[in-house]
């Protein structure tokens, strides 16, 4: 099946506009639009230049190396890969239940990652659009523009992110390439001095996170009708939830809801995720299109991430975030809005800040019982709710302790169809029949950025990443070209 605006009937008669790469998202993505002579949109596609060599990169390695090396798959959320791999390898070493110290250290690390990732996205990637408007001058619509115009807001964003990085450094042992989480547990606990150092600022982080939720709410509600409708589409949703239905970003069973909020499956054991999730392929994209097996590829696609998680759970197990969730769920249109992602993301950041603060009072963090093992298995699956959504790691290990097979389904892959739906909706709403401008193209990017996609793993050598938009005539002759250089300056050829 092809979705509306996925494939044009006569693409050879249309001109092509490409947004390449999409800006302020991680990695490399490209959007192509096919337009006719009246600028009517006939096809919109988000192409992900996803590196499919992950599995090969891992195969043949001793399993105990995996939690460290998978951090190099992605420079943006290495901790999420570190923990998802560790959880999968817990099953390999037979660690069915971690020690309290190990689980709490891992949770602390994870909440640190959520805090720093969400802070970066909201304050420095999304806020330029939200604070200045989607059509604002591109020279202003960036992180430095935010710092200049809203220095206090930007400073809090920097310090929240720095704090999250400090939590990661202390729990993972290093600022980058941490080794803290290992199959069966962790290799260090926190000293009293480390806990005290983190606790000193923990309450401030909670306070700033509350302010961030208030700002996200204000930005959404001040133009609620427009924000609710922007790139809006109906979708199923999926996330982990705790046994009592609470949000749990580290561990739980899979829950999927349909478009109306009804439960499709609940508390599903993720170690057999393939019973409920299938990965589809399309000829025009390197990235797979997962769908819910029971519904099939046409209607079974879903969304993951903050918006899905906040709406999917029954409550959030920290009081301030739970109160904010109630407000969010009661706000007309917010829970299904593409731009509702930002508000939901800040609610999660508050939950992470509260969780960090609570954990730092727990003496188990200083325990010495760090690792458990049990009956060796040859297959392990680890699932975690990474900042961008559900992250699945699946490994097979042979008798020589080498990884023979690996399958990773990353958050952005889960959201593949959902992101395509969002940009098609934006194209219908804002681009159809209009003269294409940089500001209008940014509307497409705004919709993509709401998902905070991590499109590929970071390689970033100086000099890469120009933006070039080329409009070609029916016979393929370029008729208009727009450039954005490394300093954000736009020009026409």
């Amino acid at each position, binding site marked *: 099946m092809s979705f509306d605006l996925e494939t044009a009937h006569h693409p050879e008669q249309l001109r092509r506009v490409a947004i390449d*790469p999409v*800006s*302020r*998202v*991680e*990695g490399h993505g490209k959007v192509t639009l096919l337009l006719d002579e009246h600028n009517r949109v006939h096809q919109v596609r988000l192409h992900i230049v996803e*590196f499919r*060599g*992950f599995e*090969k*990169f891992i195969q043949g390695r001793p399993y105990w190396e995996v939690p460290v*090396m998978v951090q*190099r*798959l992605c*420079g*943006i959320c*290495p901790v999420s890969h570190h923990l998802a791999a560790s959880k999968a390898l817990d099953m390999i070493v037979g660690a069915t239940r971690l020690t309290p110290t190990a689980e709490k250290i891992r949770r602390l690390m994870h909440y640190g990652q959520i805090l*720093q990732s969400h802070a*970066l996205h909201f304050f*420095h*990637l999304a806020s330029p659009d939200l604070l200045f408007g989607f059509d604002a001058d*591109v*020279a202003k*619509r*960036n*992180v*430095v*523009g935010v*710092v*200049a115009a809203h*220095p206090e807001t*930007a*400073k809090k*964003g*920097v310090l929240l*992110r*720095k704090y999250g*990085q400090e939590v990661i450094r202390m729990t993972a042992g290093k*600022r*980058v*390439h941490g080794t803290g989480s290992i199959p069966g547990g962790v290799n260090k606990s926190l000293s009293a001095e480390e806990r005290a150092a983190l606790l000193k600022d923990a309450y401030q982080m909670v306070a700033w996170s509350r302010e961030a939720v208030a700002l996200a709410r204000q930005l959404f509600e001040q133009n609620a009708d427009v924000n609710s409708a922007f790139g809006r589409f109906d979708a199923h949703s999926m996330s982990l939830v705790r046994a009592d239905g609470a949000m749990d970003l580290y561990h739980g069973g899979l829950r999927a809801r349909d478009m109306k909020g009804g439960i499709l499956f609940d508390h599903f054991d993720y170690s057999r995720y393939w019973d409920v999730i299938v990965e589809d392929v399309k000829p025009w994209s390197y990235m797979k299109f997962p769908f819910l097996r029971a519904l099939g590829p046409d209607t079974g696609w879903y969304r993951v991430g903050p918006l899905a998680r906040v709406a999917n759970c029954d409550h959030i197990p920290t009081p301030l975030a739970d109160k904010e969730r109630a407000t969010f769920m009661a706000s007309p249109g917010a829970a299904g809005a593409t731009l509702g992602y930002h508000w939901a993301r800040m609610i999660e950041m508050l939950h992470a800040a509260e969780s960090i603060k609570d954990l730092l009072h727990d003496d188990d963090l200083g325990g010495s019982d760090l690792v458990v093992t049990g009956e060796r298995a040859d297959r392990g699956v680890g699932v975690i709710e990474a900042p961008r959504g559900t992250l699945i790691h699946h490994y097979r290990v042979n008798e020589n302790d080498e990884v023979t097979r690996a399958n990773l389904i990353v958050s952005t892959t889960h959201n593949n169809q959902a992101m395509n739906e969002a940009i098609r909706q934006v194209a219908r709403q804002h681009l159809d029949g209009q003269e294409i401008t940089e500001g209008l193209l940014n509307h497409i990017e705004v919709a993509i950025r709401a998902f905070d996609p991590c499109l590929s*793993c*970071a*390689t*970033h*050598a*100086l*000099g*890469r*990443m120009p*933006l070039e938009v080329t409009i070609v005539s029916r016979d393929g002759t370029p008729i208009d070209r727009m450039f*954005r250089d*490394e*300093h*954000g*300056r736009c020009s026409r050829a």
Partner: protein
Amino acid sequence: MTAPILVFGWGNPSRGDDALGPLFVERIAAMALPGVECLTDFQLQVEHALDLQNRRCVLFVDASIVAAAPFEVSAIEALPDASFTSHALSPQAVMQVYEELNDEPPPPCWLLAIRGEAFELGQPPGQAASANLDAAVLWARDWLQAGTPTAEPCRARSR
């Protein structure tokens, strides 16, 4: 106490020549030069502006596909850079964030861009890139050992 000189290299150690920044930092750190602190990360981000505080000078180090081999060094200034890919704030943008956050100019900063060619996941740095790295380390050792790096030996140059 904060070391007066910061060497900050970034890149993904498992992506071919992208490892040049972290490898450079590793080799400089092994020299244990007095007054020099070495930091590394996958990429530059806003919080790295905080690492510039209380420094006399900073040397940023990255792989480059546009620099002439073996490397180029240039003094850099804060720039209101759009940095349209979030995973790759430029060092100039980090300096700009420092300036805006602290309401003062950042310390003098230089960018050492080591020529790289290939950036595939799971590959080690290539031969040519490794030779470029050797040359860059030799240059930096002398420069850092001088103790008070100035703009004079660091004008935009290539070798």
